């Protein structure tokens, strides 16, 4: 008998993990600022970094939000690299100028980057010093969004984790929802839970610093995003307890997530049923409509947003897709196990990346749909593959019942489009078709 995990695994939870070490093609944690600064309306994100960091933010934001945004980069210059004392003085000066110009700012995040970390610029110390100067008007926190420590959505994790120690202590029995979601989605979650009698409900991050939740041994919390491992640990350090559940994507994920919370708050089955039956039915109908073209199609996730595991669960179980590979920048087992449990064994689970080898695998299997970063989408389309940009999954409201159909739609649109365009228009493009020619 063969006892290898590959043969005996029934769900992806016990599946072996493919780890390769080569070029990664993922954003760094600074990218999270793009959505975090919209969410926290009196916060400013000051990256201490290089021109590259500023350019990354600008490029990832696509210059979508050209109004003076609540983020900026303090670009290190030759002089700052020479003497450390200078860099701290310079930082103090830039912060003073900024807070003077933006009196509406109540929270200031000093965000570390690769250059600031390599030169060992101590932003924790700077944050402490500046808090003393500007408290109580402004609280200054710090976290790392650097590419040598964080990938893409990990930046949000680092940011939220940095806030936890500063949260007021509380003995209240409260439910805390953790993760930065668009307001419309957050409101839906709160309304559903409220109707079941669950409460009081608080959110982290709150839209304004004055509304930041308290935390303590009576706090129970549920994560809205699967990439919040450090934040979870920080909350547990404060005595709070996590409610474990699959993530609220799709009808099933939302129901299981709500159910876990309902159980914690002893909501009876009848109430749960009454509150969820209508939106569940709506979600199922919407998914059925939007997922028609997804059924039987194969999907390959390149590592990107960290949403790959819960989304695979949704696409496999509710949309009838077949997963070939689920790539993630890193796997936080403690958070995604409930999702992995629900995905039947079969797909390759990979952690980290060697992008060239991964592209070789994609070319070998030619999946119907490849989820990848913006740098790879057009080149793969030009090879005749169909792609979905991962970043849209982070920017678009996709959680909970009312968005379940939209979520399926995000994946089905590229496939529908491929079918709509006549073959000669849709590629594969001949070599000679390159832009540059």
């Amino acid at each position, binding site marked *: 008998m063969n006892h290898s995990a590959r043969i005996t695994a029934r769900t992806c939870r016990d599946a072996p993990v493919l780890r390769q070490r080569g*070029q990664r093609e993922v954003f760094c944690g600074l990218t999270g600022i793009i959505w975090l600064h919209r969410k926290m309306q009196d916060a400013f994100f000051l990256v201490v970094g290089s*021109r590259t960091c500023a*350019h990354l933010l600008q490029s990832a934001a696509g210059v979508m939000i050209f109004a*003076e945004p609540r983020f900026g980069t303090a670009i290190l210059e030759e002089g700052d690299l020479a003497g450390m004392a200078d860099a701290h003085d310079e930082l103090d000066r830039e912060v003073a100028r900024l807070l003077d*110009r933006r009196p509406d700012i109540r929270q200031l995040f000093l965000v570390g980057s690769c250059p600031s970390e*390599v030169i060992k610029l101590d932003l924790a110390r700077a944050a402490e010093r500046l808090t003393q100067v500007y408290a109580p008007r402004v609280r200054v926190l710090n976290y790392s969004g650097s590419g*040598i420590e964080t990938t893409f959505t990990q930046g949000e994790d680092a940011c939220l984790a940095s806030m936890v120690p500063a949260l007021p202590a509380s003995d209240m029995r409260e439910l805390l929802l953790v993760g930065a979601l668009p307001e419309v989605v957050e409101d839906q979650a709160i309304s559903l839970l409220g109707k079941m009698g669950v409460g009081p409900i608080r959110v982290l991050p709150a839209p304004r610093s004055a509304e930041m939740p308290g935390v303590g041994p009576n706090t129970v919390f549920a994560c809205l995003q699967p990439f919040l491992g450090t934040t979870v640990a920080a909350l547990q350090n404060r005595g709070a307890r996590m409610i474990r559940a699959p993530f609220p994507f799709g009808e099933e994920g939302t129901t299981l997530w709500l159910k876990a919370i309902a159980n914690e708050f002893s909501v009876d089955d009848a109430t749960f049923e009454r509150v969820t039956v209508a939106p569940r039915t709506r979600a199922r109908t919407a998914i059925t409509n939007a997922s028609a073209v997804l059924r039987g199609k194969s999907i390959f996730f390149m590592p990107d947003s960290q949403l790959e595991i819960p989304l695979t669960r949704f696409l496999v179980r509710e949309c009838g897709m077949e997963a070939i590979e689920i790539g993630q920048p890193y796997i936080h087992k403690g958070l995604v196990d409930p999702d992995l449990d629900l995905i039947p064994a079969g797909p390759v689970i990979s952690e980290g990346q060697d992008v060239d080898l991964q592209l070789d695998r994609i070319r070998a299997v030619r999946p119907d749909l490849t989820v990848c970063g913006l740098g790879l989408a057009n080149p793969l389309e030009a090879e005749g593959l169909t792609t979905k940009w991962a970043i849209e999954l982070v920017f678009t409201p996709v959680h909970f019942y009312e968005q379940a159909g939209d979520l399926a739609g995000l994946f089905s649109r590229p496939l529908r489009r491929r079918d709509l365009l006549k073959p000669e228009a849709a590629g594969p493009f001949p070599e000679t078709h390159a832009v540059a020619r």
Partner: protein
Amino acid sequence: MKLTVWTYEGPPHVGAMRVATGMKGLHYVLHAPQGDTYADLLFTMIERRDHRPPVTYTTFEGRDLGEDTAGIFKKTCQGAYDRFRPQALIVGASCTAELIQDDPGGLAGAMDIPVPVVALELPSYQRKEIFGTDETFYQLVRHLAQPMKKTPEVTANLIGPLALGFRHRDDIQEVKGLLCEMGISINVVAPFDATPKDLTMLGQGHINILMYPEHAEAAARHMERTLGIPYTKTVPIGVGATHDFIAEVAGICGVVPKADLSRLRQPWWAKSVDSTYLTGKRVFLFGDATHVRTAARIARDEMGFDVVGLGCYNREFARSIRTLGKEFGIEALITDDYLDVEKAIEEAAPEMILGTQMERHIGKRLGIPCAVISAPVHVQDFPARYAPQMGWEGANVIFDTWVHPLVMGLEEHLLTMFREDFEFHDAAGPSHHGTPAPKPVGVAPAPVRAIGAVMVWRADAETELKKIPFFARGKARRNTEKFAANQGLQEVSIDTLYEARAHYAR
């Protein structure tokens, strides 16, 4: 340390990527952390490239620091060579790798790579993207180009066009056409679509056409010095400049200056009576030096505009743009801080901005129409159609592009006549644009901008102001307020409005 929100230029290694991505058969091994791979999307999304940029990043991590990052570089370099088999490699460091001082050039040089390896030293904490393009191309030329026998017939090298350039693809076509008229054929176009092997043939050319001084001036000078190839100083953007360019090329090459003007429509389009309304339109120019310089001449001499402000973001060309400003009787703005540019535009209150994608957004905020003349540009500035800036067709394209954001001539008159008609009212904006006219931003201005006292408008003056067509209203308001303030008034009446109008009448 300098606080930056939006930047005109990326770091210098992005400049190197623009050269590498423009070329073929060249590979760039970049010592950089994973997040720096964002730069790929500039090419694949903004320019819609259908290949990955030929760049391999080492993507070292925090835990590798103090271990063997040099080893990671060597492994990556070997892997990239084995996989892509380029004709040449360029190697270098991004801002982070510059700090760990692994010396990619030295490491790669000591490896057994059987093709030329060109090491790039791009100081990330001092220089920017445009320096990166110029320096990278220069280094490639320095390593690869050789003195050699000239081609028997007169041939030219077109140098400077590269990836993510503003209309470079189409400018090449247009310049080739201009040269062809004079019987000059092409030896090498570079970096655009050139291979490293092509670069070794540069020495055969009789003349270098320096299309974009920003990206190839160092290489042009080097080739003049070492290969004896003269280069052109005129950039053929605009009718006058194109004529000058033809004369310059003919002079250098000893051929008869010839031009086929059969496709040139711009001069008649500018002269025809509908264009009367363009007279004295106040324009503000901002972008890279080359495009601003050429646009200034077009604006004044070929469109009849009034240039009320100009400047560039690339400091390397600051002196020449300052001189240009003097020629126009204005002080040039040299800055890479878009807030300064916004402030200058606000103060100059132009009727149109000719700028980059940044000025397009500034224009949106201030309610001023904007046409794009220079990089940095966005996806909409890479059109599917043929749309050069250079040569005769370029002149036609520029006329159309600059006029498009404005209200058309006849329409402007009708708006003035019927301005109180409920349907045909001015707030509807130019009839050929689907969206309503941009309005000055309603966003509360940042406190820093709240300068001076607030001027009170009497109700009748306010009503009278509304009768002024929308595209002139902002300026009228500002001029009137300035006039009133100068008169020591706190209030604007109808009389103030008309006195101000008389004062500023041109």
